[in-house]
């Protein structure tokens, strides 16, 4: 990748996730929590992953070997909040940026023109489009999260690491006379991490040694998806199984390092 394609912002805080694939049972609680928290409307196309609105998707991984060596894993995929996002530089109207302390890639719905160039740019398929108007069955609108704006049809959306929770945590810290840029462990966590029954999703500041993600991301079992492309994701995965780590990236025959 040429230098001109890279956009690097350096932040004091780098919110990140470390997802232990070996702990994930594929129950989907993270997906449900995400949908409810972020006002994602129910739709008749919810079962069509090419058409449904989802910010977090759980992929099923298989090692492709016959029984008794066959093995599976589940891999929840939120937005990677890339350090060098492929989506932000291509947006013609600056509707998606990576410029706020914390390193979360924003999505500005009232500015998005719906050209979907960012979707073409993102290799993780983290971005989805609102193909129709959102419709909530009568009464269900009462369950909407008041801090999250609903999106009209015709705009792109994606996981924001529950950015509203970050704002609330900062506000609380300010009210208590603390530095909003030094939040304590678990003071701000996204809905998916909160809902995970097995504790597979850890969340925190990757730069802060007091946060457990700092250590976890440096584990010998940690890997990031498609690291070779230079996107520098802020989401790490953990697995003690080499075949799972290998599926984090693509390798050709001559590659020495193959994710093991």
């Amino acid at each position, binding site marked *: 990748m040429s230098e001109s394609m890279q956009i690097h912002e350096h932040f004091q805080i780098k919110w990140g996730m470390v997802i232990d694939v070996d702990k994930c049972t594929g129950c989907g609680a993270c997906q449900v929590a995400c949908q409810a928290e972020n006002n994602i409307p129910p739709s008749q196309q919810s079962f069509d992953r090419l058409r449904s609105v989802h910010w977090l998707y759980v992929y099923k991984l298989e090692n492709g070997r016959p029984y008794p060596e066959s093995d599976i894993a589940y891999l929840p995929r939120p937005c990677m909040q890339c350090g060098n996002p492929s989506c932000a530089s*291509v947006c013609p109207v600056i509707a998606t940026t990576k410029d706020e302390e914390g390193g979360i890639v924003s999505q500005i719905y009232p500015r998005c023109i719906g*050209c979907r160039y960012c979707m073409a740019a993102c290799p993780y*398929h983290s971005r989805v489009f609102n193909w129709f108007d959102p419709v909530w069955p009568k009464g269900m609108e009462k369950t909407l999260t008041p801090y999250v704006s609903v999106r009209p049809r015709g705009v792109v959306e994606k996981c924001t690491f529950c950015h509203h929770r970050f704002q609330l945590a900062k506000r609380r810290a300010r009210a208590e006379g603390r530095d909003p840029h030094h939040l304590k462990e678990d003071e701000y966590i996204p809905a998916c991490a909160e809902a995970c029954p097995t504790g597979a999703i850890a969340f925190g500041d990757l730069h802060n040694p007091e946060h457990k993600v700092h250590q976890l991301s440096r584990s010998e079992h940690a890997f990031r998806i498609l690291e070779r*492309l230079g996107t520098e994701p802020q989401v790490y995965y953990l697995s003690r199984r080499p075949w799972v780590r290998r599926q984090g*990236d693509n390798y050709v025959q001559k590659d020495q390092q193959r994710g093991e």
Partner: protein
Amino acid sequence: MLDEPLLPEGVQRCSPARFLVWITLLVAVVIWGAVAAFLIFGWGLGVTGLNNYFGFGLWITFDLAVIALGAGAFFSGFLKYILGIDELKNIINLAVIVGFLCYSGAMMLLVLDIGQPLRAWFGYWHANVHSMLTEVIFCITCYLIVLTIEFIPIILENRQIHKISLFRNLAHNFHIVMPLFAAVGTFLSFFHQGSLGGMYGVLFGRPFALREGFFIWPWTFFLFILSAIASGPVFTMLISRLMESFTRRSLVPYSTKELLGKISGFLLCIYLFFKFLDTWAWATGVLPRSGFSFEEMFNQVYGQWLLWLELGLCGVVPAIMLVVPTLRSRPGLLYAASFLTCAGVVVNRFVFTVQTLAIPVMPFDQWYTYIPNWTEWATSAMVVSYSAIVVSLAHRYLPLFPKERQLNA
């Protein structure tokens, strides 16, 4: 004839009734597309065949293809007004109209394609200077204005309009400043043709499209310019041939067509030289660095046949046919080669748009196939039909071809 006073002097045209039947057929297709457009605006893009994996589809392929093929307008203008190749005066009017239709048609589809068409002006207001698409938005809108300005004097040449001294003088003055607009058009076109290619080359998350390049421009920037100027002239020539078969009249001298074929042929050779180099560098450099092999870029649907079709049958073959004088002097071969050249550019734009998105980049993801639905086909047909209506009206009422009378005497 009812509309006799409006027809150019000394030319024959079909009866008004026959013309009306033809236009009615075209209007019916426009209505079909308008129904689809109504559904899209009314219910949302969910009524199309697009999805979260294929955010770009038939419309973007169509846009890129017609913008490339519409390059005949700026390039013919450049050759005639800047380089002074006078022979091209026989086709320059048609080149301008075809260019105008290609760009205005692409704009129509873009309005449908973007999810929030009322925010289209944000491209100017909140412009992201890092995005190739911003440059495309600026350039194609500016260039459409230039094409409109170039189209106006052609309309003013109508027999009745020309009788009015104000319009006659206006047309005269437009003709005087035309080299300036040809130069502006050339500048704008070079940039947006390039930026359309750059749009794909910068996608570092998509190894199929990713290219290295020069400074901020990936190689696709230059390849898209080259392929557009190689195919644009012969596309204009093919349209003139199509008009000749519909009207059963000679409109453009064969020498002009042959000249366009020769120009396209040489440009196609230059393009193919760099395209082969680019493909080799991509297959042996970009892909392995991204962890992919050449074979992994293709599947049963989007197979290697597409690449060989683009570079071989629609690349090397027409290039030979167009550069060898004895081959291009035979009308059948000239037209076949021109068609293949245009088809090659369409295939190129298709693979960059659709195949780029079909390939699973994450190892645990899978291939998907994109199939456009009727709403996308109908609206695309609407644009083709709209273009045919404008060309038909222009041919009937405007003196487009200076040699028409002489050729049919």
